[in-house]
């Protein structure tokens, strides 16, 4: 992009600062709650005695499996993201390359949209019975498979827009140079749609990381993911805001790290592919 200068730059920085304040303000406020005792949260106090008790409680108390939940979430979100990127970009490329402007392509892309519109509570019942009958209830595999499926529509649509942007000449040139279909896809096309893979990867990861309804239905204590664990702090007659804030803060950190490194991993994987 074109760097801004002079007055425009000041306006730009002003807008960015405001946006960041709007986004960060509430997040910082949640962080403050994580180091308060519940009574300080209740009274909305700005002067309070900071404490790490909430973090200690959610990490180490007997009742807590948060570390284990984090591991489950890490496995599910990680695996399902990698898989949905592979499955989704292959599918979108197929639609783009071989089924373009055909009825089938339209039907498929329409179907995934309709599927995406279905309220999740009507899905979880059938899915629970399906995985139970396969003996996959209470396994991370069931969760990985369902998360791939729910993230497929978004991934395919995002990737399709990126594939459509790739100039046709590039592909034709590769074919003339003797590259086969797969080699062209892997060595020429994919490196060009890297930003698309990164953004759909980040979004799939985040959706899987925070997905609650399916995880609740398909898991039990050993396989519960972070959102299910955090929802336990919203009890019938009492919300434990302090613990909820602390565990939410803890859950953000690995997600952020994974996204930063995962992004590099994707970009590097693509560029080494292109160089070879």
């Amino acid at each position, binding site marked *: 992009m074109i760097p801004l200068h002079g007055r425009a730059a000041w306006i730009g920085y002003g807008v960015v600062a405001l946006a960041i304040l709007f986004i960060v303000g509430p997040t910082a406020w949640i962080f403050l709650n994580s180091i308060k005792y519940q009574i300080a949260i209740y009274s909305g106090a700005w002067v309070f005695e900071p404490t790490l008790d909430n973090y200690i409680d959610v990490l180490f108390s007997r*009742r807590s499996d948060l570390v284990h939940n984090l591991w489950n979430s890490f496995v599910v979100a990680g695996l399902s993201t990698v898989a949905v990127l592979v499955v989704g970009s292959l599918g979108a490329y197929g639609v783009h390359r071989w089924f373009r402007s055909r009825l089938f392509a339209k039907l498929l892309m329409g179907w995934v949209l309709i599927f995406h519109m279905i309220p999740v509570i009507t899905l979880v019942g059938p899915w629970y019975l399906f995985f139970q009958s396969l003996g996959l209830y*209470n396994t991370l595999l069931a969760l990985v498979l369902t998360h791939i499926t729910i993230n497929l529509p978004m991934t395919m649509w995002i990737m399709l827009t990126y594939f459509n942007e790739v100039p046709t000449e590039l592909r034709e040139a590769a074919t003339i140079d003797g590259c086969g279909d797969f080699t062209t896809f892997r060595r020429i096309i994919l490196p060009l749609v890297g930003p698309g893979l990164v953004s759909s990867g980040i979004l799939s990861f985040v959706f899987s990381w925070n997905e609650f309804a399916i995880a609740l*239905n398909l898991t039990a204590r050993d396989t519960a993911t972070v959102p299910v664990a955090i929802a336990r702090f919203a009890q*019938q007659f009492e919300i434990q805001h302090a613990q909820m804030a602390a565990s939410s803060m803890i859950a953000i950190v690995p997600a952020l790290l994974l996204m930063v490194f995962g992004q590099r991993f994707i970009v590097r994987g693509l560029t080494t592919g292109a160089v070879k």
Partner: protein
Amino acid sequence: MKFQFATAFAAASALAFAAAGPAAAQAPFADVGKHPEISILINSSPWFSGFEKAVDLYEKQTGNKVKLDVTPYGGMLEKARNAVRAANSPYDILNLDALWTIEFYEGSFLKPFAEIDQGFALPAGVLTFEDSNYWNAQRRWRTRDGGQLMGYSPNGNIHVLYYRDDLLKQAGLQPPKTWDDVSAICQKLKNPPGMYGFVTRGEKGNPIRYDWTPFLQGAGGSIVKAPQDGDYTVTINSPQAKQALDKYIELQKNCAPPNVGVIGQGDVIQLLATGRAAQGLAVIAAWSTFDDRQKSAVVGKINTAVVPAFAGRNPGVAIGNWVFAVPKNVSAERQRGALAFSRWFLTAGAQRAYAEAGGIPVRSDTFASDLAAKPEFRWMKAYLDSQQFARQELGYAEGAQVEAVLGLRLNQALIGEMSSARALNTAAREIEEIFQRGGRRTGKLDALPE
């Protein structure tokens, strides 16, 4: 049956006050034998840690293993339904909110205790919360009269009135006995926004329906005429119900914060715990917050009383209990394991351990024991005194639909979108339609003048 309850409690309480002290009987635990590991679906809640400690004690005493799947409250119904609808339930004991039990009883998803063990009987003095753990399939009603024992309560929530002991004493006031007392205390002590006179939930849905129920019952009103006899004539638009709603709205308008229409449990606890409310109507489960220094600015200053009454009437106390039940689709061996745990858990010894660890026990003799005399258990007397007035509502298959209607119309009356008479008339019409669709014998009272 009600009479039996009342006398049992009266007798038990009398005994308790006579025998208070270390000499109170430490009833033994039961020896229930060796059983395979069982798994319990249970929600996180203020009483969970007490339950967990009781389970630890069970494992230690018997060597039997118990797995607890602690689930968010919002996910309990889904997981319980999944469990009973599948070929094999992953759970051997399900914790069911009393409002959901009808679906599970009527769908015959559960194993009656007598079919697991002919000889199983609830110990005397175990609270049944209006027989919420019995099911009479023929009458489609929860009653021990001709009904089968389907489970028992691990926890019984009822309403109590919370009040600021210190403030009332300072002002020379007695704890309120009637809603007019509540009004008078509110007028004396309120100083908003620093101090509200009275708070309770007004949030749409279950919150307002449940927290208004003590007013309805206390005024002598009801939702339907005699559901226990199959008479589903809708009586929600009676003059008594209107009196109850008007009183509720008057108190909310005069004493509570301006956002009454969305006040939920969290807000009620927040206002009481920060010392910004002088009185509040809430369930006993909220208690654990107020004596906890990390959560409360009013430690030791709050006390409980039986829900206030309308002058010259008995108070209304709404039950919101849980029921432990055993699904049909688990092996006989595990069903016996579940029953063994239940037998142990209902012993006086286990109930006492449960109470001491922060649970709300379900044996009347535990409430009447020396525990009740300790300051940290000062809520026990009001709880026990309330039992004789405690009533279930919505004990029919259409309960959730009726609650949705009431939850909306009451809330609209509270925020002034419609008059109380119009809200009740509308609700009556809608509830009658629900029962008509369900094929019940129904009808409704003449509309209130709007």
